[in-house]
């Protein structure tokens, strides 16, 4: 088997403030000022000594928490930025999709943008000519192809942007989370297209937070943690490793501002900790199937907020949603907490026993004002296990199908 990608001791150092565009720019005065002060060695390694090899035709996933270095890795491989140390060799034409719709201009029509965007992604005019009809059909924008895209709905815009990218035919494809956008139907379509690409024998590197997409599309996955590869192996094992690791303490996720400033530290919402407590109130990562448990999220509001909702998503490790729930779902609660004054808060939800099936679950969290602003969002914030102890139907030792395993009220009527 031929080699597609070789990465050797790849490292990337950022000056603090440089990474993730925290400091947007410097002014001349800052630099002049710096001349007279001792240089501070505030640097971080976004990537450290990353090495791996990918044979041609393999589809590889890359997972890790925010700030683990996933995007930096793809940026280096796609030549957007240079490494500080180490090197990478790419054997084949590379197409990178770090974002869809790069270079789209609102004033230009769909047709014009297809050509422009295609050229930016590295397609020749002849290639675009050849695939033009296919792209338009895939995006389902035939009727609006000569309308400026500023008049497109966000869905149409997205479909067109992805359609151009999807018709790039590189030998090595680098993809960063582009599937996280769009409605469910469109996501399915994108996943389908990705699957096709994989089946055509092309090499794909795929960064995602979506565990089900990773499980579905890839055979092998790298887990990054603080810039290092901490796991490299079959995808199911990697997903398990990822979900079980990285949490300071079983059953609790704390947000430490210095280490992981992925939210706006100056913003009004500051997360502190997310915990799972069993029926006895102990923080744990394993709850009994027959007992209720609580999920609590501690946070601080720096300013009064109107219309805030704080909630959790419960998912299986396969990435299927079990439910979504917000602390002001109840109309009375909604009225009571319409305006929240500043202060330290705890939003707690009680999940009944005899309800979830045994297995591992993932909690994602979200704090937002609906339709206005998202203050905080984290996928895979915490994982916990539902222990089979006292599971419904324990009289038969069998694995039951289904996410839920509820104890429902049955009636048995004889000779009815």
């Amino acid at each position, binding site marked *: 088997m031929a*080699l597609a990608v070789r990465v050797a001791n790849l490292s990337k150092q950022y000056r603090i403030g440089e990474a993730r565009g925290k400091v947007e*720019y410097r002014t001349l005065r800052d*630099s002049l000022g710096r001349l007279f002060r001792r240089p501070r060695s505030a640097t971080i390694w976004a990537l450290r000594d990353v*090495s791996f090899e990918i044979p041609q035709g393999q589809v590889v996933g890359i997972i890790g928490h925010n700030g683990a270095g996933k995007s930096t890795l793809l940026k280096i491989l796609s030549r957007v930025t240079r490494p500080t140390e180490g090197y990478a060799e790419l054997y*084949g034409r590379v197409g990178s999709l770090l974002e869809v719709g790069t270079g789209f201009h609102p004033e230009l029509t769909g047709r*014009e943008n297809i050509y422009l965007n295609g050229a*930016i992604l590295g397609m020749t*005019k002849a290639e675009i000519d050849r695939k033009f009809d296919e792209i338009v059909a895939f995006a389902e924008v035939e009727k609006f192809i000569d309308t400026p895209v500023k008049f497109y709905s966000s869905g149409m815009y997205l479909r067109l942007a992805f359609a151009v990218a999807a018709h790039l035919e590189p030998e090595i494809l680098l993809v960063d989370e582009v599937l996280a956008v769009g409605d469910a139907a469109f996501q399915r379509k994108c996943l389908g297209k990705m699957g096709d690409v994989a089946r055509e024998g092309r090499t794909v590197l795929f960064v995602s937070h979506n565990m089900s997409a990773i499980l579905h599309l890839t055979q092998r996955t790298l887990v990054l943690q603080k810039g290092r590869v901490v796991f490299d192996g079959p995808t199911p094992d990697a997903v398990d490793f990822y979900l079980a690791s990285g949490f300071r303490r079983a059953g609790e996720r704390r947000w430490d501002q210095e280490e992981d400033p992925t939210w706006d530290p100056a913003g009004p919402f500051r997360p502190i900790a997310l915990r799972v407590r069993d029926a006895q109130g102990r923080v744990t990562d394993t709850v009994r199937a027959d007992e209720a448990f609580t999920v609590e999220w501690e946070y601080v509001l720096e300013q009064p907020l109107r219309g805030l909702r704080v909630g959790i998503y419960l998912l299986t490790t396969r990435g299927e949603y079990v439910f979504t729930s917000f602390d002001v779902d109840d109309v009375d609660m909604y009225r009571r907490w319409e305006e929240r004054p500043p202060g330290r808060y705890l939003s707690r939800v009680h999940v009944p026993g005899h309800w979830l099936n045994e297995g591992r679950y993932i909690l994602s969290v979200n704090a937002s004002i609906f339709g206005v602003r998202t203050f905080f969002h984290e996928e895979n914030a915490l994982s916990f296990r539902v222990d089979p102890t006292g599971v419904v139907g324990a009289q038969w030792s069998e694995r039951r199908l289904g996410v839920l395993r509820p104890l429902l009220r049955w009636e048995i009527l004889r000779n009815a």
Partner: protein
Amino acid sequence: MTSRINPNPKPYYIVRPPGRWGFPDFRELWQYRELIYFFTWRDLKVRYKQTLLGVLWAWLQPFITMVVFSIFFGRLAKMPSEGLPYPIFAYAGLLPWEFFSKSFNKAGRSLVMNRPMLTKVYFPRLVIPLSVVLSSLVDFLLAFVVLAGLMVWYGIAPTPRVWTLPLFLLLAAAVSLGGSLWAAALNVLYRDVGYVLPYLVQVLLFVTPVVYPTSLVPEQWRLIYSLNPMAGVVQGFRWALLGVGPGPDLGMAISVTVTLLVLLGGLVFFQGMERYFADRV
């Protein structure tokens, strides 16, 4: 992990830490010629989209400036114009000047304006300022038609040395690109540059013989005056087309030398700073 799966042929490309400073890879730039074309085309397309007069603006802008200059400098200030009608004298200077000032102003900001692309896609970054200069060149060529019309109107025949005009146009393009490379790269690191550019262009207009003839500049200052490369360009235009003012002399040689230094230095500087673009822009 370091086991060799297969000793391969040549990699398509290798990513390494930035090396020593040097010139951009012109072969690669040539491979990206279609992208240069598309960016230029986008610039022009967007500039005249949703305007009532569309591409007429390429004619109107320098024409209106010429009329204003003719009224204030020609009529009121009685500025000498080497024996030519002032409008045609001013317009012949305005054309290369507008080409430069438009390119420099826009290309100098072009990297920052295209930030999303710089952080998401790879292509030689030189493509961006280069295509801005090219799109200004198209505007120049359009506006040139008006100059031809003016010459017919005033009954002025071009000189036999009009064939040198493309050389001066090339010089103007070199000044524009060279200056833009410095400005664009610096602007990524220091946004101050974006604020300074319009003033710099204004000051340069005063030390370029656009509204006045070079003969107005005292003899002993001429050589220092020629350090402004646009002085050479504008003089050259009038000399080649209308047959007035100094032709290729020591001053012109100085202008050309400065231009080459600005351009070559700009290419090296731009290439050297490219390593910082994606992380700092």
